């Protein structure tokens, strides 16, 4: 394995394109920003179609109530209202319920009862959005309130109200039990351990809150029967198949267009009732129908993230060798089990919780429960629950350090996997592809000036000032499939890609994944440039339209570069191979006599004799006689089935100051050393990391969606659900090590979620470290000033419930 210690570009191509861009890997400005920065992005809500109608959704004010009656007559009498649709209407169409991505069903519109505050109850289509909203107030719904189940820890109590009375024979709120690892080996390791530490911790319910809320414009052509859907979604091809299954519309008559997307973060993976309702609205009215939710609807009703109540246990020797980790999870999935993840993994990839350490044994058990909250759970850049896994293990290591009285950095260094152990099979069955963990941690500690920070902290503690240093070392597994092990509702997780080089040497790359701000139009053009020597400005990346792109599973779980990026590399190589044959025909030599250098096939030993890729493109479309078996034109397609996940990792260090009298936390510094293998565009990678670090500060210090005992959502607007601003974020200090993935064609690993996954425990560890003089070992996020103050008094609050 090649390991370099520079800020790697993964490139040996120093030359620049005519536009001054790297001919391959390296920093370049994002191609898409030309339109975004000028306000010329085109989002779903920008779609305007002739005769288009607007819609709005009436939502439940109750968390749990029986619907006694719905009277829509006044709304229907509104002069601008075209249709009012209720659960009863949908029952007639067999569309009242739709399948979720997790073997459950979800109400499109409530029929029998409402199961969370904000649930969809009725749908109005009108001439304009104001009339649609006005008409909602004319719908009269009579509810009979039922006791809501708001505390997940009480959801399985014998006297808890049963939420899913729609499921025949259901008598409790239990969804599933699932486990991974070796329970017996774990018990044995714990039984023999000198030190065992246990800690309960909650990863609270948070929400991805993309700038652009969710929406759909649906247009069913009554003549051709073709349905065109513009929607905010991260997986257009999967959506097409699901619409076909849900609505019974033939799949070849469905076109999903995902235009510019204003942030996804897992919020736009699934299909929401509003999407289906827009389709139904278009079918019913014969007109295009737009539905775009507002901010509160987005926060209250669309895919939240986390909500894991975890009981962690860690076993170690007295001198700090970690032996085993065990964890029991109570997973709050809300009213419908709608987690979006590979179907065989009900707890996502949580069982990567063994983290970055060399353990003897590990085991986890996850129990999913229904509560009267919105469905979701897998979102917010979580890499299918690796956020929860990393938080668990990185908090547990700090809790162990606290109990052993040792430095948390030393304890980690002592237990990290060693480079020679890779490829490494974890105790829960993951095969980590590559890594040099101690090097990344050393580098982070160097940048931080770790020893000096500890010295400063000791001096401050003498004076009664609270300063904390927190470390997090994370390992992620990203880039699902392989298709054999990973599927979404039976759709194997492999991605297609098509590359066509036009006669003049300009290229179009078609990919199945869907950018939501990640910069695919730039990064993927750079991949083609790297492989083919076509300048990145000459490569147009086409995505987000199912009629014009090959099938694939979409962008989430940091899978674009690991899967679609690999597909782009492989398809480029196929074109390169074809170009070789064409060049050989033109040069009247054997393809074996040619060698590839910098966008050109030339004769070995006679480099003057050659053809550039652009020349070959024209030749392949021309009258040149091609050898037997070679068709004309210059294009190729591929379906890339990843052999394994890629395993990016990183070492993060956070430095905080805490005001002992107010509880206010100030994040002074944050050092992030990420290793995502070769970096295609380091600028974009850093941008992704910056964003994820901000999200980590947000989760650690201010974000949570709690509920009061009556079932009211306490995070239903940006007044209550806080996103961090520049003022809460320090100037990020980033660093890199490069350990290429041995199985990815470009040696790259996914990175889009690394910082979101890795940073929360660093911030929390720092705050808890600052509070050490008060004997604080743990407090749950978010560490608001009040929560810090309560923790200092030994009574931190439960952050999933209303404060009392």
């Amino acid at each position: 394995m090649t390991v370099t210690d520079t800020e790697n570009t993964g490139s040996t191509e120093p030359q620049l394109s005519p536009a001054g861009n790297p001919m391959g890997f390296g920093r370049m400005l994002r191609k898409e920003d030309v339109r975004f920065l000028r306000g010329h992005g085109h989002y779903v809500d920008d779609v305007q179609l002739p005769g288009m109608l607007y819609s709005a959704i009436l939502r439940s004010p109750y968390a749990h109530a029986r619907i006694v009656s719905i009277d829509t007559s006044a709304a229907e009498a509104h002069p601008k209202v075209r249709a009012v649709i209720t659960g009863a209407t949908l029952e007639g169409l067999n569309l009242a319920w739709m399948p979720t991505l997790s073997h459950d069903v979800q109400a499109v519109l409530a029929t029998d009862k409402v199961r969370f505050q904000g649930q969809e109850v009725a749908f109005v289509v009108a001439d304009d959005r104001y009339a649609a909203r006005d008409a909602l107030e004319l719908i009269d719904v009579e509810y009979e309130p039922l006791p809501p189940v708001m505390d997940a820890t009480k959801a399985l109590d014998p006297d808890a109200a049963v939420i899913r009375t729609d499921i025949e024979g259901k008598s409790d709120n239990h969804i599933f039990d699932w486990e991974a690892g070796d329970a017996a080996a774990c018990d044995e390791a714990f039984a023999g351990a000198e030190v065992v530490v246990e800690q309960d911790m909650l990863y609270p319910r948070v929400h991805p809150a993309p700038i652009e809320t969710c929406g759909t414009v649906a247009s069913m052509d009554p003549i051709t029967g073709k349905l065109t859907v513009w929607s905010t979604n991260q997986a257009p091809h999967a959506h097409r198949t699901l619409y076909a299954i849900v609505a019974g519309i033939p799949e070849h008559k469905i076109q999903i267009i995902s235009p510019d997307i204003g942030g996804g973060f897992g919020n736009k993976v699934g299909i929401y009732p509003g999407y289906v309702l827009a389709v139904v609205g278009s079918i019913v009215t014969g007109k295009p129908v737009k539905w775009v939710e507002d901010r509160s609807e987005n926060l209250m009703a669309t895919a939240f993230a986390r909500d894991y109540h975890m009981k962690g246990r860690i076993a170690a020797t007295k001198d700090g060798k970690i032996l085993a980790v065990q964890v029991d999870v109570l997973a709050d999935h809300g009213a419908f089990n709608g987690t979006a993840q590979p179907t065989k993994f009900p707890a996502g990839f949580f069982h990567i919780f063994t983290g970055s350490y060399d353990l003897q044994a590990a085991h986890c058990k996850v129990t999913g429960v229904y509560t009267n909250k919105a469905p979701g759970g897998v979102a917010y850049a979580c890499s299918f629950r690796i956020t929860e896994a990393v938080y668990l293990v990185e908090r547990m290591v700090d809790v162990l350090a606290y109990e052993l009285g040792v430095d948390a950095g030393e304890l980690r260094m002592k237990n990290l996997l060693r480079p020679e152990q890779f490829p490494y099979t974890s105790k829960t069955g993951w095969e980590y592809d590559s890594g040099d963990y101690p090097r990344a941690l050393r580098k982070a500690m160097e940048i931080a000036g770790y020893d000096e920070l500890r010295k400063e902290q000791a001096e401050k503690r003498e004076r009664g000032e609270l300063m904390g240093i927190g470390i997090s070392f994370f390992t992620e597994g990203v880039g699902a499939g392989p298709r054999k092990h990973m599927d979404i509702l039976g759709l194997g997780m492999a991605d297609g890609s098509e590359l066509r080089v036009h006669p003049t040497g300009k290229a179009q790359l078609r990919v199945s994944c869907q950018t939501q701000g990640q910069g695919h139009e730039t990064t993927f053009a750079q991949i083609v440039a790297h492989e083919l020597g076509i300048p990145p400005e000459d490569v147009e990346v086409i995505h987000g339209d199912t009629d014009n792109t090959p099938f694939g599973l979409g962008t989430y779980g940091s899978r674009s570069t690991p899967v679609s990026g690999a597909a782009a590399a492989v398809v480029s190589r196929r074109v390169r191979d074809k170009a070789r044959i064409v060049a050989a025909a033109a040069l009247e030599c054997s393809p074996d006599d040619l060698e590839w250098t910098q966008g050109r096939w030339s004769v070995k030993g006679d480099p003057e004799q050659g053809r550039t890729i652009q020349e070959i493109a024209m030749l392949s479309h021309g009258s040149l006689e091609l050898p037997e078996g070679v068709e004309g034109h210059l294009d190729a397609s591929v379906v890339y089935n990843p052999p394994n996940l890629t395993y990016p990792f990183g070492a993060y260090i956070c430095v905080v100051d805490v005001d002992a009298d107010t509880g206010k936390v100030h994040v002074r510094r944050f050092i992030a050393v990420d290793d995502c293998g070769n970096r295609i565009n380091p600028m974009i990678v850093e941008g992704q990391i910056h964003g994820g670090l901000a999200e980590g500060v947000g989760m650690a210090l201010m974000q949570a969606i709690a509920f009061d005992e009556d079932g009211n959502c306490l995070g239903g607007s940006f007044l209550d659900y806080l996103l961090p601003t520049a003022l809460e974020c320090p100037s990020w200090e980033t660093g890199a090590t490069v350990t290429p993935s041995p199985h990815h064609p470009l040696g790259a690993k996914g990175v889009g979620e690394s910082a979101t996954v890795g940073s929360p425990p660093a911030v929390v560890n720092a705050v808890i470290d600052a509070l050490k003089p008060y004997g604080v070992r743990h407090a749950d996020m978010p560490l608001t000033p009040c929560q810090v103050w309560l923790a200092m008094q030994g009574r931190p609050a439960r952050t999933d419930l209303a404060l009392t």
Partner: protein
Amino acid sequence: MQTPASFEYERATSVEQALALLEQHGPEACLVAGGHSLLPMMKLRLATPEVLIDINELPDLGYVRVEGSEIAIGALARHVDLLASPVLREHYRIFEEAEHVIADPIVRNRGTVGGSLCQADPSEDLSAVCAALGARLVIQSAAGRRTVEARGFHVGPYETLVGPAEMLVEVRLPIRPGAGSAYQKVERRAGDYAIAAAGAFVVLEGGMVADVGVGIAAVGAPQFTAPGAEDYLRGKEPSEPHLAEAARLAAEATAPAVDQRGTVEYKRHLAGELVRRALRSAAARAAGQEG
């Protein structure tokens, strides 16, 4: 997208016209200035005024100036005007410190003094500042002008003495030579409503507190102030034990409500701590010891 209910719109070009429009349209009419509280409430349909009377173009209401022994602030002065005002910086640092932590620059560019006070949000920082400084507020109606004390302006949460056909037009502050003042606030995040906030001014004579004012926001202090703490401190040396006792008395006068920003106990503790810090800083400035 959030969509407000339909409403009529009128643009006033003089105070008199604005008052006449209020009279004409009755209690379902609403003045809009910066709109940063009203418009979000309308989009959420928490507010559904039938008529909006836009007063943004009223001339000559955006001033901050010295008039004799007082500072006069026009009701249409924007937050950003207060933040940048040399007059206020010279006499009352409390304004600069409070304005720095009010919302964000976008809101401060549009939001007005009059709108902030009349919105009468229990967390409103300028209500605490005006209470601390003993401001007087000038209310105009067709019948003429009347002046009320800031410390009696609030009838309840989101309710003031301003009647349906009246308009707050001016804030008047006594100039207190040698006064030091300061503002302190803790929020979960920049731009969030305060968990608690406190401001104070102190005038020293011979090292003793000759005059003092305390303002408190977001924790249910009646009329945004704590007279008991002020009474206690008057005539005393601003020593740490005295400040601590004043802070304790101020905290005692609060009646916080629990929400996700904090428990009652924490908010009361925090209010006391911020009163202490504001008093300490104000006293130091009065003594010429702190910028």
